[in-house]
């Protein structure tokens, strides 16, 4: 079977990952231990895009953290997940020490949308001049790759549970209980 076909057949993995991530972040107070990084705090915040796939019919629902009657707290999004919708995108806030990232993670390719990396101070170059573009480049690459390391590490943890017996024996029912409440 070709790679593209395999990717299409396993498209649910990304949605399951985002659902697992949301569940785990609420269970652990958002604290995860990431290899080579240490503690990272992660929250799946109020921005979601859910999709119901019913045969050939797709419905998309976007929930955000706004206050209008059409946009509610994540509780309604959880209920929608319980009723069979899949997470296509989720807003994430990631904190490592004093650095905070916010971004939207896409379930299909784990692409990163609208990432706002941590704010940093202006870097001076060797001549003590402001606006060292080289330094800013290396700093930005470091911050981007750090966030990606966290995502990939969490995905690895997810896969370990998803592949194992623990998923059907335990995790599914825990997630469903959490979704219902």
């Amino acid at each position, binding site marked *: 079977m070709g790679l593209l076909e395999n990717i299409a*057949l396993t498209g649910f993995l990304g949605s399951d990952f985002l659902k697992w991530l949301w569940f785990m972040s609420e269970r652990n107070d958002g604290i995860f231990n990431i290899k080579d990084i240490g503690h990272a705090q992660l929250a799946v915040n109020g921005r979601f895009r859910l999709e119901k796939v019913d045969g050939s019919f797709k419905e998309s629902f976007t929930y955000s953290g706004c206050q209008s009657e059409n946009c509610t707290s994540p509780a309604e999004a959880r209920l929608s997940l319980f009723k069979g919708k899949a997470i296509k995108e989720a807003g994430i806030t990631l904190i490592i020490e004093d650095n905070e990232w916010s971004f939207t993670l896409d*379930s299909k*390719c784990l692409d990163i949308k609208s990432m*706002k990396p941590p704010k940093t101070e202006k870097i001076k170059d060797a001549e003590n001049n402001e606006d060292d573009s080289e330094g*800013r*480049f290396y700093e930005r690459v470091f911050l981007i790759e750090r966030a*990606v390391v966290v995502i990939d590490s969490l995905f690895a943890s997810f896969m370990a549970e998803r592949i194992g017996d623990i998923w059907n024996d335990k995790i599914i029912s825990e997630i469903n209980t959490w979704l219902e409440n």
Partner: protein
Amino acid sequence: MAIISSSINMSRYQTDGDVSAKFSQEILDNLRRYSFLESAPEDENGEKIGWVSLDNMFISPLDDDSFDRNGYITMSMRIDKKTVSSRTLKVFLIKEEQRQLEQSGSDKLSKTQKKDIKDAVRMKLLQQALPTIAIYDFFWNLKGQSLYFFSLSEGVNNRFYELFSKTFKMGLIKTSPFGLAVSNGYEEKQILALA
């Protein structure tokens, strides 16, 4: 520079091929060959595409120090596109058709004549038009074989894939949950069995 902007969109890839810190002369020649050239003509779609320096969109990545940054390859893909609005084309087409009729003295143009006139008018207007310029950055971690391209547009990613493959003679594999699972050591059939 998209890499250092306040809000970033990124497509993720793994490179698929032998990577060394020092590129062969063939690759360097390809990089020069596929660098963006202001003086090059547009293609039939009014487009020009090529590599430019991450720090300077007017020069090739090979012409400054930004191309190779301590194990990271960095540059941008520049796409200049000229377009002619259908309304503008229509106005000039009518004028030219009338001119041709007056010149020839006939009262009707054949289908072929109309097509030839349309192509000529469109080409002339394209030459006069100013292009829209789009710059898409990427950086490539050679050691990790991971690449980050700063656009989520499918069409732009397809163009990038094509240009990258021609230049570096290797494939790009789009990151996916399936691909990540494989890179974590799970077998294809194990992963597919989860469906």
